[in-house]
């Protein structure tokens, strides 16, 4: 499985290692501000938004980082690489399950 597509897996590995490059853009994407940024961005926090914003707070690696381990760029970069690795294993792992249901 890994050998046949080794070049594609290799590229994926390179992407994981290089993922901290995504940290260069420190700004939040338009329309993705957290509640803490909204006051500054819009001057107020919409009432309905405030109620729903915290709907899911169980993300184990919030913002592709380890909670309390993002004080330096090195820590953020490490968190980013670990997150990329975890994400790739989960996403590829789930998709590989499809080999159980498709035809030969």
């Amino acid at each position: 499985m890994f050998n046949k597509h080794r070049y594609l897996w290799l590229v994926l590995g390179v992407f994981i290692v290089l993922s901290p490059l995504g940290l260069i853009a420190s700004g939040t994407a338009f329309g993705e501000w957290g509640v803490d940024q909204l006051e500054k961005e819009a001057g107020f926090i919409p009432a309905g938004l405030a109620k729903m914003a915290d709907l899911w707070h169980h993300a184990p690696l919030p913002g592709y980082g380890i909670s309390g381990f993002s004080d330096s760029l090195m820590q953020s970069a490490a968190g980013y690489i670990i997150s990329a690795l975890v994400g790739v294993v989960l996403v590829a792992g789930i998709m590989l399950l499809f080999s159980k249901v498709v035809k030969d």
Partner: protein
Amino acid sequence: MHIPDGYLSPQTAVPFIAVMVPIWSTAIKKVKQRLRKKDVPVLSIGAAFSFTIMMFNLPMPGGSSAHAAGAVLLAILLGPWAACLGVSVALIIQALIFGDGGILAIGANCFNMAFIMPMIGYYVYKLVKGSADESSGRALLAAAIAGYIGLNAAALVTALEFGSQYHLFRAADGTPLYFMYPIKVAVGAMMAEHLILAGPVEGLITVLGLRFVASTHPELLSEQKHSKLYGNKEAANHV
């Protein structure tokens, strides 16, 4: 482009989950019928690739950021329905494990990036490529245009979704209940970023990805040619 929870009203977010249910079930049905076991690793790598490419935030003038998504490359290689499943799984993992994109907003986010983007991208690619060879210069141009238009179509739909909230939902005191900018502002900001920077990056990734697969796994592309030669309208490994 990952809409967080609270930016869309429940009256908007929930119907998008309802819309995604038949889309997901069609995608699963098509993948089960048509994808073959040997193509599953490619779909898995493609979905994981889409996951990582979305982590590469591109700095935008004005301090914002945006990213490519890789959905059109996956659609060109394995078809739009396979791409829909792969990118959906990437988006669901991003929401659950990394808090990127909302839980209630997962329907809208999958609709934008896992349905609109690969579908539009795939058919733009087919249209521009015409009957040209899969490894021809015309096919590469088609891939670039498809990536560019696919990502921008997703950005536009995203902007319309949250921008419309400003006009539709107000608190008793007149302030917006959910997304806080009018549709014009939302569309203007999203399209400026994606038309000028993120779109060209998506086009480039689609071309480079296609070239890389053509050189390392020509069988993935030649199968499409083969099935065309034998009169099968849709490519053999396309879902």
